[in-house]
């Protein structure tokens, strides 16, 4: 999958970022997602995985380093500009508009573009038939799994080039986890690059092409998903083997 020689879809180079001034959470993290790739970021609690996604998406200033989208520098660009350029993000929590209907949630995902809305809506609803039957219902009434589907659906409304996902399987039943990963694979098969943050290391590495291990705000390991799965250190640290 690393054979693509064109500019990578997403390139994060030595990014330093943090919340409080003077306190860095990320100490120079680098990540690359190539066209058509599905990349996992795993790491223990508090490693800075969510922080990295927030920095990529312009929600948190990158103090140093560079972020490139399709070869163009987008470091510290505003989220609405990144959305226009084909980046989408599903946060870990609070990722739907609870008092809006399912349909309205999806419409908000396509706020910045009018054309092709109907076809896109049809595609997203066909991906999640559970939502299709309840499109008029408020998102706040959905179960955890359905909410996660809606969050994914909202992020897909603009047919993004890269999708950033923050623990889409968190607190879901095993059956739901399988279903969500299955859908993510389908989205990836349609050509969308995916950067997937997961606690669930084994599951994530088994669906992704490549993976990065993040610890204490630094790159610890990286490689083909298969080799990481077999890696002793990763096994010991994150999979309890």
């Amino acid at each position, binding site marked *: 999958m690393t054979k693509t020689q064109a500019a990578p879809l997403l390139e994060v180079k030595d990014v330093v970022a943090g919340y409080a001034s003077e306190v860095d959470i990320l100490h120079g993290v680098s990540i690359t997602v190539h066209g058509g790739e599905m990349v996992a970021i795993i790491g223990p609690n508090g490693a800075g995985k969510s922080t990295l996604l927030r920095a990529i*998406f312009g*929600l948190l200033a990158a103090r140093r380093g560079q972020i490139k989208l399709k070869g163009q520098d987008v470091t510290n660009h505003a*989220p*609405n500009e*990144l*959305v*226009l350029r084909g980046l989408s*993000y599903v*946060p870990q929590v*609070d*990722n*739907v*508009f*609870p*008092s*809006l209907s399912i349909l*309205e949630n999806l*419409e*908000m*995902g396509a*706020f*910045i573009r009018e054309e092709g809305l109907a076809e896109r809506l049809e595609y997203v609803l066909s991906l*999640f*038939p*559970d939502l299709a039957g309840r499109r008029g219902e408020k998102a*706040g009434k959905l*179960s*955890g*799994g*359905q909410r996660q*589907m809606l969050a994914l659906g*909202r992020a897909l409304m*603009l047919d993004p080039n890269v999708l950033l996902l923050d623990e889409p399987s968190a607190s*879901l*039943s095993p*059956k*739901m986890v399988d*279903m969500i990963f299955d859908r993510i694979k389908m989205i990836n098969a349609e050509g969308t690059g995916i950067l997937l943050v997961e606690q669930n290391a084994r599951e994530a590495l088994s669906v992704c092409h490549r993976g990065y291990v993040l610890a204490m705000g630094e790159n610890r390991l990286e490689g083909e998903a298969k080799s990481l799965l077999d890696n002793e250190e990763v096994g010991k640290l994150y999979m309890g083997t």
Partner: protein
Amino acid sequence: MATPQTISPNLGDRLRGFQRSAGNIAAGGGLWAAIIGFTVWAAFAERDALTVGIVLGAILALGAVGLTLIFGVLKFAHFAHGDSMMLSAFIAWLLLNGIIVGERAGSETTLLPVTINDLPGADSAIWEFSFGYGLIVAMLLTAVLTAGMMVGIDRVVYRRLRRRKSGIVIFAIASLGLAFVMRSVILIFWGPTPRLYTPGIRNRIDLPFDVSVLADQLFILAAAFVVTGIVYVMLFRTKLGKAMRAMADNPDLALISGIDTDRIITWTWAVAGCLIAVAGVLLALQAHLDSELGFALLLPLFAAAIVGGLGNPQGALVGGFVVGITQEVAVTFDFLSPGYKFSVAFAILILILLVRPRGLFGERS
């Protein structure tokens, strides 16, 4: 195919959940029963007060919907709401007559070269109303001007505070400051004397079931109904309105979805400005133009918005009527003199905050 995840909380959790929802239903249902019971009782015992209460409720509802929209999208308590309403009412008065008071109280000077009342027939009464089409034109023009004024204030004051990432308390205090500025502007230009849009008698209309209302009050109800309808369509049928609700729900996710939040904020002020203007003119038509009235109205406005659940436009609509009706009917009781009107709003506010802080329509978060 995918099945919804099954959650199996332990028995203790389930019992506690049941207890909580039972409490909610009791508090919510109890409040609803009290509201409906009170209104039905008033319909028999205090019909005139109920009628006035409904009219006042419609005005409060318009104000409270604007207040709750601002709270939802911008997350702060807009303390200048009442005074903006009264300032709008005076702007409409200026457009109608072109008059401001001169340096010495009483000596009126004409400010505008052309006024709405100069238009042919603008001040000859329509139907049984006390005013001509001029007032309606003035109200619509004022809505546009007030929308512009609110957007302008946002640019000059609130946007700066947003850029500085000020806390909500700073925003609320800034709006309180603006409230004083607006009241002073009214006093400087029009003085403290209460005024009416039109002199002359108010005609009474007899309706079925022994109800009689002023013709002007029918106009107030109709205007409030039309404006509420327009706002409803805007909020629930247009993309802009949906984005406002989305921002009220989850501002971070609105940003993440690519919604241009600055633009939505501007539109929120514009819509709130229109609501403020219409509510202000209707209030002055029901009562009078008075520099003090705006600030006094703040309490019932907040009570209405909180009764409905802050940030919830439908809730604010119902809340306006609840507060308006309760206020008017309660002061018919012998032990409450009309001077205690606003303390009734205060009592409702406290009751709601104690029993059901998220309001009648607020959802459990």
